[in-house]
């Protein structure tokens, strides 16, 4: 589904990703861990197509197609979703209005008519229930004044509404309380199928108890330096990153 090879990317002439490779197949869950500043959010932004990042070398393939030249909205239309580490506020636009606009933009790209209002409402109700979101919440301005946890839950709500093929969850667990973490993880699991894939970026093993990864990767200084199964996450939790740094520099 997603195949990244020797990816080099920089921002303002500063190289952040330095020859990164990863392959994600349909039905898989990948976890990416790594110290602060390693380049995890940069990787998500580059996959999602943020303009400010320049890809200087390497390739990103999505479903067999090189997507490097595609705009962010075009990548979204192909089914790439990213849950933001820091979701952005849009004052005056309700969650409902925003998601409606997003869904209809995606449908338009697929050559479909706008989703009928009753169908939209049904879907909103269903997904809000899945994530235990109060309907009143959906009338509030997008992310404006939302608590950290509410923002993250709202990201997953949007993911549930958009039903992407590939979801990248950038520290979706940070800011969530224990109950919310379970609800959100449960929501993500319910949306999993043999046809879609998830990349979870996290600092904590805890999330991976709920969203169980098939693979765990360590991203360090712009490269994937170690990959393994879910046991690797436990090891990281116990030992920290120093031993990896030593392995890399050795």
């Amino acid at each position, binding site marked *: 589904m997603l195949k990244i090879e020797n990816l080099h990317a920089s921002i303002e002439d500063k190289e952040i990703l330095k020859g990164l490779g990863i392959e994600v197949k349909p039905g898989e869950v990948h976890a990416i861990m790594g110290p602060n500043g390693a380049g995890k959010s940069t990787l998500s932004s580059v996959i*999602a*197509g*943020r*303009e*400010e990042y320049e890809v200087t070398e390497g390739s990103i393939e999505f479903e067999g197609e090189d997507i490097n030249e595609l*705009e*962010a*909205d075009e990548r*979204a*239309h192909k089914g790439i*979703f*990213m849950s*933001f580490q820091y*979701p*952005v*506020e*849009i*004052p*005056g*636009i309700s969650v409902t*209005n*925003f*998601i409606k*606009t*997003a869904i209809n*933009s*995606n449908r338009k*790209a697929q050559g479909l008519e706008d989703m009928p209002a009753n169908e939209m409402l049904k879907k909103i109700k269903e997904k809000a229930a899945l994530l235990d979101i109060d309907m009143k919440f959906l009338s509030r*301005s*997008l992310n404006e004044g939302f608590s950290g946890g509410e923002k993250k839950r709202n990201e997953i709500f*949007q993911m549930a509404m*958009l039903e992407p093929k590939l979801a990248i969850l950038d520290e979706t667990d940070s800011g969530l309380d224990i109950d919310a973490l379970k609800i959100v993880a449960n929501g993500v699991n319910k949306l999993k199928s043999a046809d879609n894939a998830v990349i979870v970026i996290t600092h904590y093993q805890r999330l991976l108890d709920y969203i169980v990864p098939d693979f765990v990767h360590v991203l360090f200084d712009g490269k994937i330096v170690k990959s393994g199964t879910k046991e690797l996450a436990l090891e990281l939790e116990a030992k920290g990153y120093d031993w990896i740094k030593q392995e890399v520099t050795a």
Partner: protein
Amino acid sequence: MAYTEEELKKELETQEYAYGFYTDIEADTLPIGLNEDIVRAISKKKNEPEWMTEWRLEAFRAWEQMEEPDWANVHYEKPDFQSISYYSAPKKKPQYESLDEVDPELLDTFNKLGISIDEQKKLTGVAVDIVMDSVSVATTFKKTLAEKGIIFCSISEAIKEHSELVKKYLGTVVPQKDNFYAALNSAVFSDGSFCYIPKGVRCPMELSTYFRINQAGTGQFERTLVIADESSYVSYLEGCTAPMRDENQLHAAVVELIALDDAEIKYSTVQNWFPGGKDGKGGVFNFVTKRGLCEKNAKISWTQVETGSAVTWKYPSCILKGDNSIGEFYSIAVTNNYQQADTGTKMIHLGNNTRSTIISKGISAGKSQNSYRGLVQVGSRAANARNFSQCDSLLMGNNCGAHTFPYIEAKNKTAQIEHEATTSKIGEDQIFYCNQRGIDTEKAIALIVNGFSKEVLNKLPMEFAVEAQKLLEISLEGSVG
């Protein structure tokens, strides 16, 4: 497509006027220039009574002595008042019972404007009085209104048919000598609308007028007079678009609102005159005097969406004369390219317990300048006056400007005046967030702008809100991609 500020800004600048066209309807035009003879000729062409001719001449004499103001934060080449023709009426001047009889070319024009009359007719509860190049050519729903005793007609007709009312109220809120443009308007106004709501009557529909400028080189001087008698209510909508022109077109309208005891007037405007090309050439000069007078317990709300004109100079105001009267001003002003807008309001508190609210949203793009200028004045005898003002500016790119000039003159110690102001920029992160969810940049900007303007859009009547949103999108997007 690009998301950087720099590129975004460039894309905004490549927007073209969507409604640029010209309708070829035969017109009857007076020679250019202005003198007493021209004023008399205008009055004569309109078969006005003697008192009206005199009233115009008085205004003209005052105007001759006046200097064109230049204190507003706008810069432009001043119009040459002697090179304008002050009267232009469609030659065929039919009186229609039904819209089916209207000149097909005119209907076509309206279709191009996206305000098809067919659609308008379907919108139940909207009476449309179309002012086309200075003379009303079609009026609808008149009969329904007449049953309630409501008068809604052109000002020329009112001068003839309801001269007592016109004589009593014309110029009482905006005197002939009020300012340079008001004096000019008083001397030469060719048409406009008149509305009277009798005591205790709630007008059952939104009254709506579409103004436009059509004849090349013709200034347009509309005169609107709305009188809401005691305990009555009316919601009045004014909207306009203009064909593309090379020369600047002058527009100097005067709108007077009178809300008698316990009456309420809602006056909403959507204005989309040709703003000038990307190079700043052409476009309408819009110098408007709008003012309302509130008697006891009366309320006047001005809501405006300004997206057009090269130069806009406009301050819908409220004189809160009666005790407990309320004045409101809700405004969205969008400027792009070289547009300049200097708008705001004046709230004059004279009565006790008078309240005013001002919500102003300025959106600037391109090389435009957008200024809010507001005056809140509390008279020495106005006890417990309250005002709340909020002025928000949204900037796109680095070459535009937003300015806020709040003036406060409180002569009574019991006054409570609050002013809040914010300035923000559309962020790349906001646009990327929308893009990531599949929303293209053009739509993302429209979404962000709509969100920013929401408090004011919400104040518009439903029919207008949709049109206003469309205008906002047209004036800021269309360009991207």
